[in-house]
């Protein structure tokens, strides 16, 4: 499995609100998650993959609570 790298800051994710919620719950910045769907849409799997470290740099970006 090829490991994608996390996306640069400033990129905007395409994701359903429910996926955004999962990202929030996992303290992931959804905009950094590479999406595997059409036009780069981020699915729940993508977020989970991102968290489980299959994506390089994933853990580097913990979301600071505001």
């Amino acid at each position: 499995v090829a490991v994608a790298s996390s996306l640069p800051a400033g990129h905007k994710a395409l994701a359903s609100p429910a996926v955004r919620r999962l990202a929030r719950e996992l303290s992931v910045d959804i905009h950094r998650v590479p999406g595997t769907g059409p036009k780069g849409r981020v699915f729940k799997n993508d977020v989970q993959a991102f968290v489980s470290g299959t994506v390089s740099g994933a853990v580097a970006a913990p979301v600071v609570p505001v």
Partner: protein
Amino acid sequence: MAKMNMLQAINNALDLAMAKDDGVVCFGEDVGHFGGVFRATSKLQEKYGKARCFNTPLTEQGIAGFANGMAAQGMTPVAEIQFADYIFPAFDQIVNETAKFRYRSGNEFNVGGLVFRTPYGGGIAGGHYHSQSPEAYFAHTPGLKIVVPRNPHQAKGLLLASINCPDPVIFFEPKKLYRASVGEVPEEYYELPIGQAEVMKTGSQVTVLAWGAQMEIVEKAVEMAEAIGISCELIDLRSILPWDVDTVAESVKKTGRLVINHEAPLTGGFAGEIAATIQQRCFLHLESPILRVCGLDTPYPLALEKEYVADHLKTFEAIKASVNF
């Protein structure tokens, strides 16, 4: 219990209400001796006299104004507008007067007893002047309550609750179902709650919401969806104003998806209000966009009714699209 069609259930409700309370008076065009063009007030004049069940002159604004006056005096007028398509001449009396009566007077006066009954909706080859579903025109009006029953049992219980309600109610009757919908109806007096939706079937993947005559149609669509393995939660909204945000929101929080169906044209229809509220209330739960399956943005057609309407197939497609988004 007795088998009744929707007209019989409505007639029975009116009969019980008139028997129970002298203040209940039924009137409208052809409502008297003839019992209304659909016969919803059949035999009521015979039973309760001409003073309490009568024909009016042909003036919807007059009917509504007269009803406002009677209700202000403390009586309980149940006024019929022959077709919902003809409620618009009464629009000022309803929207500017009925709805604001209590508020504007600081509760010195009110028209709480008032009910407007009116047959609405299509499917009867009636074209755009005998098919409209104007609930959304009224739903923008604080002070009104709006109720739409889906079958005889609901019709009786909701109509009795409307008559007994301390606020004015517009009661839209799906005329397509007047004779077509038959079911068991308790013979005694009972009320069903205004402002509460009913979850008719639980499910996990998508919430499907409608009201009135469309319930039959969405039920069919839900059956089709279940047959291909989509688990649907089916809700009958029953009251348009106030509408039961909590029940719908709870369902959508669970399913993450919502398909709304109504007969009226899409733009400005009440599905818009529901979608707007639910996307806010359930935002982070939404797995797919809220979809609306509605009439086209045209007057209700005559020749191509089948194509125009928000039918079970369009709803089925929307359910699939929602789940497969």
